[in-house]
């Protein structure tokens, strides 16, 4: 599909409007849909006391936090995927590649199995422990990037991240081994991912690191475009390569850590959303980054809607739906394009 040669501002406007509309529609309509029919007028009917208003509770407690979580997690993972793919100059890179997601998973498993972790500002210990795990992994990866000699390619960072992933997986297996039946069950369920947060505190908690990551992402698009051609040529064009890499790494890792701590590891979005978006808008990061944010959020909202309605009254873990939905669609787009 040839990208039309329009001026950038026009393409930016079309992209943001198009994908933004998609995300807005998803956020507005998803809370209305679900396994139980609710009526919007009843939801906002002030004459019924909230404690008795089942429709309002379904809307405000069961569905709206879910949709907001899906929007945040989907956009965070999609943007992190874009940035990691540019940083590592590898189209197969994902938020999981460098081990930050695994660090978050390990933190959660430690909290579940050994009951460690403490509540901070009313945020559940599990969330705190999981995010702390992702920060620890980030620290290790950051240390690796510092230890790299200047000029050494991204291969070192990539291999280091893959090794960290393997190490963390081994530790997680050991923790599983130590866990009793109930804890194992909880661990396995957590690893399947769940968006049913049923409260706004976890969302607000995750919003903190995500805001920081958005600030970092905002500075990156131009530099990532230049970096993807090569470090030397980017440096020749005035890009502070080292600083860009660090901002990219920290922002993408904060976003990933917050997303995984909030909803568990949700597979597929971080690798597929960037590619799907690039098939539509091209490779310019000024378009790809915001479009991926909107698309990732909308995609996860859609997958969650399917997950909670297709086998009603039982729910599917959302990670299953993202993989089953995303895979064939992506393959179709990929082969249609050629």
């Amino acid at each position: 599909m040839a990208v039309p040669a329009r001026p950038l501002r026009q393409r930016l406007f079309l992209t943001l409007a198009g994908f933004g509309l998609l995300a807005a529609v998803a956020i507005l309509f998803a809370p209305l849909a679900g396994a139980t029919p609710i009526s919007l007028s009843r939801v906002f009917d002030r004459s019924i006391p909230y404690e008795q208003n089942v429709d309002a509770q379904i809307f405000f407690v069961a569905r709206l936090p879910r949709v907001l979580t899906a929007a945040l997690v989907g956009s965070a993972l999609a943007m992190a995927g874009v940035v990691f793919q540019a940083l590592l100059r590898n189209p197969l890179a994902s938020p999981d590649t460098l081990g930050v997601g695994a660090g978050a998973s390990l933190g959660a498993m430690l909290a579940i199995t050994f009951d460690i972790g403490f509540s901070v500002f009313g945020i559940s210990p599990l969330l705190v422990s999981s995010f702390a795990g992702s920060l620890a992994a980030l620290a290790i990866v950051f240390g690796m990037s510092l230890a790299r000699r200047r000029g050494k390619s991204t291969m070192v960072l990539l291999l280091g991240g893959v090794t960290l992933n393997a190490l963390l997986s081994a530790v997680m297996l050991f923790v599983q081994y130590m866990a009793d039946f109930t804890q194992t069950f909880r661990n396995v369920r957590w690893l399947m991912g769940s968006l049913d947060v049923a409260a706004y505190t976890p969302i607000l908690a995750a919003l903190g690191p995500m805001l920081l990551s958005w600030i970092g992402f905002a500075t990156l698009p131009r530099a990532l475009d230049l970096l993807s051609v090569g470090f030397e040529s980017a440096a020749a064009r005035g890009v502070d390569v080292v600083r860009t890499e660090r901002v990219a790494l920290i922002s993408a890792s904060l976003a990933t850590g917050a997303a995984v701590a909030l909803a568990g590891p949700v597979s597929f979005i971080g690798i597929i959303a960037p590619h799907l978006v690039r098939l539509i808008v091209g490779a310019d990061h000024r378009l790809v980054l915001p479009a991926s944010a909107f698309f990732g959020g909308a995609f996860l909202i859609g997958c969650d809607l399917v997950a909670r309605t297709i086998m009603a009254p039982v729910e599917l873990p959302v990670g299953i739906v993202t993989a089953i939905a995303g895979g064939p669609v992506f393959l179709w787009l990929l082969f249609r394009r050629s």
Partner: protein
Amino acid sequence: MATVSPLVKRTVAALLTAIAFAASLAAQGRGTAVPLPARVPQRIISLVPATTEMLFAMRAGARVIGVSNYDHFPAGVEKLPRVGGLLDPNTEAILALKPDLVVLYDTQTQLKQRLAGAGITVYRYEHKGLPDITATMRTLGDAVGAHASADAGASEIERQLAGIRARTMNRPKPKTLLIFGREPGTLRQINASAGYGFLHDILEIAGGTDVLADLKKQSAMLSTEMILARAPEVIIELHYGESLPRTSIDAERRAWNALPSVPAVRNNRVYLLTGNEFVVPGPRIVVAAQKFAEVLQPSR
């Protein structure tokens, strides 16, 4: 085509006969010999906590020489050697104790083969519903030569359960959500009884109706939307292990305030029950049933 000569025909027939004869010999020779118990087992290892409790209840506890890692009842088992559990049975430890009967899970295929190879009799335990508890107790009693006391114990369990059922039979049965576990402090990852299994059966005997009975599964992961839609009148949360401090119980109770329209929350009928008699389908299910009955049908 040329006709086949009689000589070839006879040779082929002879060869086929020989092959068939050899195959039948091989088939007869195969099969692991399972030795019949020549006498009443005196050295019993129980990998299943439920059967351990049954063995002690039928007064065969003195003959139990090894238990699983998850056995905690009765108090006497704490001194016994541990030999692993469902997922990680320690074959070496089992063999070292020189048992003459091992009670194991029917799904422990590898362990069964190894013990058969060592010539040790096994009793295969299958985890099913409530009626199977007393049925298992009786067949286990026969296997260990304690038929009379096993039968008496099983009959006593049946009598007590029938008594509980009779007391609750004519009362209205509240729609009950029986929760096996969730994430502490929040309403996430709620895992609940869904209409099948021995806990479901006890719930119905004790005077409750499983609010998810139509799903007919042992357990299901619930969303908050489902809980709001199903509107249970009683919520029972099970906690295994030691009892929780009062502050924790109150904190867990407060988590439900996020769903005030649920009748159980509104009418303050959310209960947290502790104790591991809920996870061991053995003689103490009577205690479990009594605890359920106390909260479901409080005596006026």
